[in-house]
Each structure stands twice: as C-alpha cells, then as structure tokens.
C-alpha cells in the first residue's frame, strides 16, 4: 500500500515537473508574446495541481493535505486571473496578436 502511494506520487510529481519545464521552454522558444503567455499560464496553472496532488499523497490524511488543497484552489483562482490581466493590459496598450490571416479574410472564407 505504501509502495503504491509512493509510485503514484512519483508519477504525479514527474508529470508536474515535466509540465513546468515544458512551460519554461515554451517561454523561450515561442516567437510571439501571446503564444508565450499562453504557454506560461496554461502549464503554470496545471502543474500546480499535479505537484500538490503528489505531495498530498505523500502526506496522507492530515491537516497538511487540507492546507495543500486550499493552496491549489487559491492558485487556480489567481493564476489565470493574473495571465488575463497581463494579456488584457498588453492588448489595451496596442500589442496586437500576429495572425496568419486577418479576421476579415477568415470571415470571407466562411470560417468562424
């Protein structure tokens, strides 16, 4: 039983670390601001869950797990909000995303 919990928490922590590292690589490799923010915010919000789940499995049925669940909830609320604030302020001050075709062109072609 202890072994299963250990293996499971290892897997969750590894997935979390992989997501974190891939998000960090995405920040450097993407060429455009909005893609970079997308990489950072999506992976940032998700890998918190995996790492905390791995830690919750490790700490069992104690008060620490409840605090970790609260921490995950708080980060799920605030991390997308912060990314939204960032992207919104960039859009409002004039930085527009580089699209491959403009919106008018896309509407003409019948796509949404």
């Amino acid at each position, binding site marked *: 039983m202890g072994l299963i919990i250990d293996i499971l928490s290892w897997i969750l922590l590894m997935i979390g670390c992989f997501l974190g590292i891939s998000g960090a690589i995405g920040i450097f490799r993407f060429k455009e601001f909005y893609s970079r923010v997308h990489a950072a915010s999506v992976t940032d919000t998700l890998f918190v869950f995996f790492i905390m789940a791995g830690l919750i499995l490790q700490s069992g049925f104690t008060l620490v797990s409840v605090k970790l669940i609260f921490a995950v909830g708080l980060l799920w*609320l*605030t991390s997308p*909000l912060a990314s939204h604030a960032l992207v919104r302020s960039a859009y409002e*001050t004039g930085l527009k995303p580089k699209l491959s075709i403009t919106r008018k062109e896309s509407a003409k072609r019948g796509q949404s």
Partner: protein
Amino acid sequence: MSNITLLIDVVLLTMLVLTTVAIVRIQSLFAVIMLTGVFSLLAANIFVVLDAVDVAFTEAAVGAGISTVLMLATIAITGHEKKKRRKNSWIAPLIVVAITGAVLIYGTLDMPAFTDPSAPVHQHVAPRYINDSPTEVGIPNMVTSVLASYRGYDTMGEVIVVFAALIGVLSLLGIREKKSEPQYITPAPRPILQVMSKFMIPFIILFAMYVQFHGDFGPGGGFQAGVIFAVAIILYTLTFSQQDAMRLIPPWVLKRLAAIGVLIYGGTGVVSMLKGGNFLNYNVLADDPIHGQHYGILIIEFGVGLTVACVMMLIFFAFISRGDKNP
C-alpha cells in the same frame, strides 16, 4: 548536512546569484523590477530552509509583494529605460571590488562554523530568551516574544521609521486628488478582473486579520498583517479606479490612523510608566505579569499593523496619483 538539504541550498543560492547578475545587466527597468521580486521570493525560500519562518513570511510579503508594486508605480512616473551612461574604464572599479571582496572573505575565515552551538552569538542573550521566554512571556512563538517584548524598543524604532518614510513621501509628493464628476470619466469596466477581485478581497482582508492576531502562536505579527491588508486595498485600486479606492478609505482617515498606530505603541509604554514600571515594561499592565505581557504584545502588534497598513496604502496612493508618464 544531508545531501538533499545541501542540494536545495546550492540550487537556491545559485538562482539567487544568477538573478542578481541579470538585475545588474538588464537595461529594461520593468524586467529589473520583476527580477527583484523573484530575488525576494528566492530569499524567502532560503529563509524557510534555514528554519526562520517569520522572516521568510515578512520577506515574501514585503519584498516580493508590496515592494514590487511600489516600484512599478514609481516607473509609471519616471520611465521604463535606464539612463544611458558614458562608457568608463572598468579596470579601476574591478580592482576596488576585488580587493574589498578578498578582505571580506579573509575576514569570514575567522568566524565560527555555521550552526556551531558554541559560537559567541549564541552565548549572551539568546540562551536567556530561549530559556526564560516560556515562563516570563508565555506565548508559543518565541520570535514574537523577542520582537515585541524583549526587544520592544527596537520594534518601536522600526514603526517610527515606517511612519517617517510616510512623512517623507507625503511631504515630497503628496496625494493629488483627482477631479470628480463630471470632468472625471469613469474607466471602462473590466468584468473578469473586477468580479474576481471582489471575490478575493474579503478573504485577503480576513487573512490579514488572522496573521495579525495569530502572531503569538505561529508566524505572523503586525508587519506582515499590515502589508497584506494594504495589498487587498491596492488590488481594489488596480482593478477599479483610484477614485473608488479613495472614496472607500479617504486619505485623511489613513493619515490619522497611521499616527494613531504609532501613538498606540508609545502610549503602551507611557501607560506602563504610569502604572509604576519602566517604559514598555508589560509586566505591570495587568494583575499578573504573564497576562500583562500578553496584553502588551497584543496591543503593540495592533499598533504596528495599523501603522504599516496605512503607510503602505498612502504611499501607493501618492505614487499613482502623480499620473502616467508612460501610459
């Protein structure tokens, strides 16, 4: 030291050094401010590894939280780029830095080993505080008992320094009250940010109250609580408008409250003198010395929290009311 602790220490300190190098070399001030926030967060992690949780809490709240916000408000006034300097020769500063660094490292060779229990710093007052704090002061958190009771004078000095910073900012910058309607245009509503802020602000304020009064039992105390409370109001200001925030808590109220906080602290000392003890001797505040200590610590921490919260809010209002140089 076990291997994993050593690994964590090395990784954190290396990241600290890299962040510092980046802060020195980068030209864009916006990025530099973000990096100082990262620096403070790494320092807070190092403090946690060193088992100093109160200090880590204060460092994270002040350094990574409000300091970043205030510096961002500053570059909204001053500008985003570093001033270009003439290229001077780099040999003379390098020699000075190398000599100073070598002398400092030579000086540290004589110091006792890290965490050596027989070091002189652990021999004089520290054993007395650790041995006598449970019987003399009686609160579980020894950091608060040292900060608020044994070293009450120093904490009073800290609060007065914070208040003096407020006086400096207000006399140099002042808070410019913006025009009200009809010349003032209400900014466009930002639904996602405003709704989520309205959801989070009561919990942030509740957490500030918890940190304030829980400082006796766990990490916390007046400074962290004041900063967290100010951050809640700053969040409100950022997502709504400065008009709304200044209508919610008018600056004249905050100025009075900041002074009242310092007055509460000094007043506790004067009350102790009037009751027969020395200045800031809490033993005489109640019939029983332990209860007196508890009352004294509670009251002065409240004074500290009040002053710090009001000072942070007023400094933020003063900075952002100056307008935008780079909109």
